[in-house]
């Protein structure tokens, strides 16, 4: 029972990490940039979901609004910040990204207050009981949404023309261009989808905690960095696997390791060890 409880926790957190990290790995795969500011996109998504859901009384409308707004924000980051910096070495856009994250976090605090905002709906509190294991509605939503999204992404990139074109551009940009696929449009699509996913993840986390505060993106941001390296940079499948693994490791591990090392530091420890030992990550998709 206990171990199943932990497994439930691990899987749902892992799914949330996956939705958050996919955006990061997509950007890296395409542009070789570590889009640290993705955490700000995540946080923005969470805020939009909460604010719109509270204003309209409908959770669905909240998520819808987030899925519309955050891709715009993500694409703007690409256009205004990354595109002009592509000609420099990769750490330049990364530092800019870090600066943007720090700025956005303070902006959230200033605009929305330090206390954070809670939901007015009671969706966050529904739970179900299966043979002694209690699962909350939000956890189920996370797993179901993640499954749906990844299945959808798979179908999109294998069955639709745009999707295939996107995949082609990521792996072989020159050849894809010679087939008439516009690499710029692909970039925008990349950011749009990654950001929308982060927004959904953000909204679900806000539901899970019943709180969105300025720091909501921060903790997840560096875990996402660890995850995309672990999963093999640019590999969506790898990210999914790594996310679930990290979620489970945290769920089972915190009780034991929490005594001598900060929980957040665990993800970083894993990251550093991995970068030193096997910079290609689990699936070896791209080199660091």
């Amino acid at each position, binding site marked *: 029972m206990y171990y199943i409880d932990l497994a439930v926790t691990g899987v749902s957190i892992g799914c949330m990490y996956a939705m958050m990290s996919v955006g990061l790995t997509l950007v890296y795969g395409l542009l070789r940039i*570590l889009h640290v500011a993705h955490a700000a996109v995540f946080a923005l998504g969470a805020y939009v979901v909460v604010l719109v859901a509270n204003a309209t009384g409908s959770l669905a409308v909240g998520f819808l609004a987030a899925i519309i707004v955050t891709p715009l924000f993500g694409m703007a980051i690409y256009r205004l910040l990354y595109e002009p910096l592509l000609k420099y070495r990769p750490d330049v856009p990364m530092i800019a990204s870090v*600066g943007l994250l720090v700025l956005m976090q303070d902006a959230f605090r200033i605009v929305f207050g330090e206390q954070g905002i809670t939901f007015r709906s009671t969706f966050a509190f529904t739970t179900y009981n299966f043979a002694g294991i209690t699962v909350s509605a939000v956890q189920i939503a996370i797993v179901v949404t993640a499954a749906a999204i990844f299945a959808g992404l798979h179908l999109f990139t294998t069955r639709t023309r745009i999707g295939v074109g996107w995949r082609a551009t990521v792996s072989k940009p020159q050849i894809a261009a010679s087939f008439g696929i516009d690499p710029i449009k692909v970039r925008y699509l990349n950011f749009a989808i990654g950001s929308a996913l982060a927004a959904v993840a953000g909204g679900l986390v806000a539901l899970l905690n019943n709180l969105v505060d300025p720091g909501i993106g921060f903790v997840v941001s560096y875990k996402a960095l660890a995850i995309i390296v672990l999963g093999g940079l640019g590999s969506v499948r790898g990210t999914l696997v790594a996310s679930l693994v990290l979620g489970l490791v945290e769920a089972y591990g915190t009780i034991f390791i929490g005594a*001598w090392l*900060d929980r957040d*530091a665990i993800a970083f420890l894993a990251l550093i060890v991995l970068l030193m030992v096997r910079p290609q990550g689990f699936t070896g998709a791209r080199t660091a």
Partner: protein
Amino acid sequence: MSAYEISIVSVIGINVILAVSLNMISGFCGQISLGHGAFFGAGAYATALTMVGVGSVPLAICAAIVTGSLLGIVVGFASLRVRTDFLAVTTIGVNFLFIGFVRKQAWLGGEMGISNVPATGLGASGNMIMTLLFACATIGLSFYISRSWMGFAFRAVGEDEGAAATLGINSGAYKLAAFGIGTALAGLAGAMYTFFTQFITADAFDFIFSVMLMAMVVIGGIGSTWGVVVAAVGLTLLPEAIRFVNDYRLLVFGGLLVLVIRLAPGGLAAMTRGALLRVRRI
């Protein structure tokens, strides 16, 4: 000088040492380090422990330099394995690991930190003067390195490792040297900090602080000693001078960092150089 002015100048001195040393690693040698706070913290803790245990100022300073440097060289090895932006991520990780580890260790004060660190006996003005002297020494060292063969090698490694190899430069060794020297100085700054506050907690050395330091380097002009010094002084004074900046500190620093990278990646140094060229042409 009033106590307030003494404390401001002391902090300026500390920030100058930190920024210039970071510039050596990230500017001269091109190894982006977003975890400089960890080495600063390592030095601070080493000093605190030495002062509490033995009470000797020179010993404490040595301990700080050695600790910072050792930790730096260990991290420097990471730079041999991964390329620059992953190195940056590794250094972020080091920063978090450092704080995560320190906060859990009772012998390092844990959450409470180390308090009642004995005074140096020099008084606040004495400490300030010591800090300023070290800051000047650091600036001097930075200029010296910049103009020496080592500086040339650093720059070669930073800009194009492959080309550097053809010149017979062992890039690995120079990267380690850059880290070792830069972090030794960060440790020194840590010692000055502990003398100043006599009470340290882990959260003063966090990732956000490291980002602020990188902001100073970038805004000053990555690679330019003078630029970085000016930026360190200016960005330390700015929150004190302008209330708005104080209240919205992270917003301003983050914003400046983004703006400078986006619009003037060479920082103040490049802007001044450009302005100088234009003046000469007139």
